[in-house]
């Protein structure tokens, strides 16, 4: 992968145009038109609850829709090539090498009876044609790149010996092993503790900056998406109810549902304190300094 050249307009590595997905058994359209373009180093976020169609949309882009589900309208292009009618062989090339993904439950994507390092090395052997030795070396590099502290140790460990956060790092290492241009992270931090979630999100941001990796971050939590994304799509019942640059969606939401998601954070979440109105926050002085002592302290640590 190469760093993003500055000033040069980038062509989209992933482009969805009015993508519709149909359940052929029940003869119902499940996803009613999703469009976005992803250029290198950019991050698009999809927010929605279970059943909103966000995961189906991702699966369509990966060519792994469940049985009986088909893309019934619109188009999906990966690095400029329409994926409609791709042969299975061509898909195998594309997955891992160009587009890759990590999901919510990392342990279920790894073989419990093979050390995790060998499973990462296997990706380089199959996709890059590296020999055993080179593949092992590459796997160790990747384990270091996802900031696992002792790559040699982790290489030989089994899934049951690793925490959820470590497993998700291993999965990310495997997902980027063949140098994809796009990584889809579908609820990849949902099952993790908050501090571990932040570590994974920081890692993704880091990869994006260092390698120009483009990301699709899918979450039920608007705040997670707000944290890392340039553009946000809010989905509900298969429909994109709101779409735009992150700041616009957060500060000028147009749809009632987006407002509900924002309200939840502002009334019941941390935002209640972080940006409290003056009347409700006696400790805020009149100097316009809205930072609490804690944030100042954090500033000092930076």
């Amino acid at each position, binding site marked *: 992968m190469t760093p993003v050249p500055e000033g040069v307009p980038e062509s989209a590595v992933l482009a969805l145009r009015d993508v519709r997905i149909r359940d052929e058994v029940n003869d119902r359209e499940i996803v009613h038109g999703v469009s976005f373009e992803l250029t290198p180093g950019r991050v698009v976020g999809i927010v929605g609850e279970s059943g909103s169609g966000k995961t189906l949309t991702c699966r369509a882009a990966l060519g792994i829709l469940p049985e009986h589900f088909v893309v019934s309208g619109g188009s999906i292009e990966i690095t400029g090539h329409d994926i409609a009618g791709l042969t299975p062989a061509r898909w195998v090339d594309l997955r891992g090498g160009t587009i890759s993904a990590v999901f919510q439950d990392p342990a279920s994507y790894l073989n419990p009876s093979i050390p995790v390092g060998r499973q990462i090395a296997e990706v380089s052997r199959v996709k890059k044609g590296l020999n055993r030795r080179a593949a092992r070396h590459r796997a160790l590099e990747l384990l270091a790149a996802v900031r696992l502290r002792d790559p040699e140790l982790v290489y030989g460990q089994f899934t049951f010996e690793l925490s959820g956060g470590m497993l998700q790092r291993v999965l990310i290492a495997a997902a980027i092993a063949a140098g994809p241009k796009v990584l889809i992270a579908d609820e990849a931090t949902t099952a993790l503790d*908050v501090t571990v979630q*932040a570590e994974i999100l920081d890692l993704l941001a880091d990869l994006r900056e260092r390698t120009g990796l483009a990301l699709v971050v899918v979450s039920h939590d608007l705040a997670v998406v707000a944290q890392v994304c340039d553009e946000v799509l809010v989905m509900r019942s298969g429909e994109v109810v709101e779409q735009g640059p992150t700041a616009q969606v957060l500060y000028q939401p147009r749809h009632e549902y987006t407002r509900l998601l*924002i309200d939840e954070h502002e009334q*019941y979440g*941390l935002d209640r304190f972080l940006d409290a109105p003056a009347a409700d926050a006696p400790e805020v002085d009149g100097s316009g300094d809205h930072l609490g002592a804690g944030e100042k302290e954090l500033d000092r*640590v930076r």
Partner: protein
Amino acid sequence: MSADPAAPGYAGPGRPVLEVTDLEVHYGLRRRRRRVLQGVSLSVARGETVGVIGETGSGKSTFARAVLGLVHASAGRIRIDGEDVTGYSHRQWRALRRRGVVQYVFQDPLRSLDPDLAIEESLIEPLLVQGVGRAEAVARARRYLARVHLDEDLLRRLPGELSGGQRQRVTVARVLVTEPALIILDEPVSGLDSANRVQVLQILKDLRDSGVALVFISHDLGSVAGVADRIAVLYEGEIVEVAAARTVINAPRHVYTRLLVGSAPTLRSAAADRAGRDALRARLRV
């Protein structure tokens, strides 16, 4: 509710309903014995919600279980509603729980409701156990179902026919029928979607205002911050910080709390940036 000054159980405002002093819990035997909680002290007053925040393995659920008499405390004292329950036998604990003074709500509402019992039966069961007459029990069940904004039609349904949010609200109603002084909630909103989460959190706020003491245990600082008056931060089995919710979030003192607050996603981006978090992580590892 026992918050009513006219009610027999009312003991005056601000009196602690739960007093935990230097609680210590061990798991395992002999060489496998390890300390899960150490020196934990916390008190919760009537009409107060105290959040207990901690991550996987911090001991937060063990704390809940100890307060409910489900695990044995190896040291320390627990007083519930003025009663020293520290050395209680199984039989005494069961009697205490049956009286309904202390109640609990866990994360998974499906597992806390009998799948073969209609909602009405589930709701009146704890009252029948106490010897309340059926007519009175049904009346109370209806009252508390309304309290959690659920329709009476649901009374005849089975838990499997309800949505996750409805089930969790039924669980809360079931806890309320015995009019407890103290409710322990372990991840009560973690499995719920946005709209249901808001509803359950609002119900908890109303309960607090009616005088019940609540202990809200969660890994999710966001949902705890929304309803707790005070927050206790559990880290590796110890309370490293306890203060007003606003103070914990705006001026966290312990390194772990700072990392926790700095990691929690908010709409305005986390309180710390990447470099700030890295610095805190490095300090925590030392």
